[in-house]
């Protein structure tokens, strides 16, 4: 056989033309997979939950679902105890064993909770005091969505005896009560 008829292999990856004089360590590849936060087994869509922090602390609210961000979507319902559609982290919550049977709810995501960023000032306006309308106003879309959700959740709450007054009341600790010894 002639040289041009012989079979020979070609490397798939050629060795590089330049390489460093000293061997240096290459960092390990990041194989992290972003997963949604694991929800406590005691928290299910429809479970009644006690808020532990924020202006609504002590209030008992209904969990609607877990959002893609990992936070819980929660509502009072607004008609019952004034807690609107709100996001809450599961660590700031005590789950009770009470569950409400929720009907099918409209899809809600994290987008409606996104706030508009503060307006950036250019150099001229930097020292001008803008005591203007930078306060947060609830959008009409949110109000409508709240009404829609309330119309679905409130009847489900009213079906259970005394559940409405339970949600209206706040959780408090009295003498001799210790949360780590209590069953929720």
């Amino acid at each position: 056989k002639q040289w041009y008829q012989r079979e020979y292999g070609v490397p798939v990856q050629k060795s590089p033309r330049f390489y460093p004089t000293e061997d240096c360590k290459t960092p390990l590849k990041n194989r992290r997979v972003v997963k949604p936060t694991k929800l406590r087994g005691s928290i299910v869509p429809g479970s009644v939950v006690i808020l532990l922090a924020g202006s609504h602390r002590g209030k008992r609210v209904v969990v609607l679902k877990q959002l893609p961000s990992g936070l819980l979507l929660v509502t009072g319902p607004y008609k019952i105890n004034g807690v609107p559609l709100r996001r809450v982290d599961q660590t700031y919550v005590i789950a009770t064993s009470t569950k409400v049977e929720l009907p099918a709810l409209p899809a809600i995501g994290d987008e409606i909770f996104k706030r508009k960023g503060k307006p950036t000032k250019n150099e001229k306006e930097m020292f001008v005091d803008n005591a203007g309308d930078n306060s947060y106003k609830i959008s009409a879309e949110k109000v409508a969505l709240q009404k829609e959700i309330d119309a679905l959740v409130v009847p489900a709450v009213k079906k259970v005896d005394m559940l409405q007054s339970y949600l209206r009341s706040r959780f408090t600790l009295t003498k001799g009560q210790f949360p780590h010894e209590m069953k929720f």
Partner: protein
Amino acid sequence: MLYKRYIEIGRVCFIRLGDDIGKSGVIVDLVDQKHLLIDGPDGIGRKVLRLNQVALTDIKINIPRGCKTKTVRTAMAKEGVEAKLAATSLVKKFAAKNAKAQLGDFARFKNRVAKTASNRKIRSTVRKLKKSS
């Protein structure tokens, strides 16, 4: 007589402290001034307990000192100790306390509302009676 319930062989005790809380056993022997040898049904077996871990009941059975577990159990069955125990206030109170601790938040709320309502009724009735008298 000042004392009615004695620490004696055959005295049925209710265990109020420790791992076996809520269970009951029979005094089989005395170890020293502060310790008892207690034996009972499957749940508790034969063990040494301190005097303060234990509360005496009114029930006493006839067993010889240091007798075997089998003897104790047959004697307990013969005297119907289990039924008698269920009627004692110690056992009843412990069961009630346990049940209360197992209540959830919603149940506690309902109990509280019921209690307030009944207390209101009682107070208003008492006031009416006081007024009329």
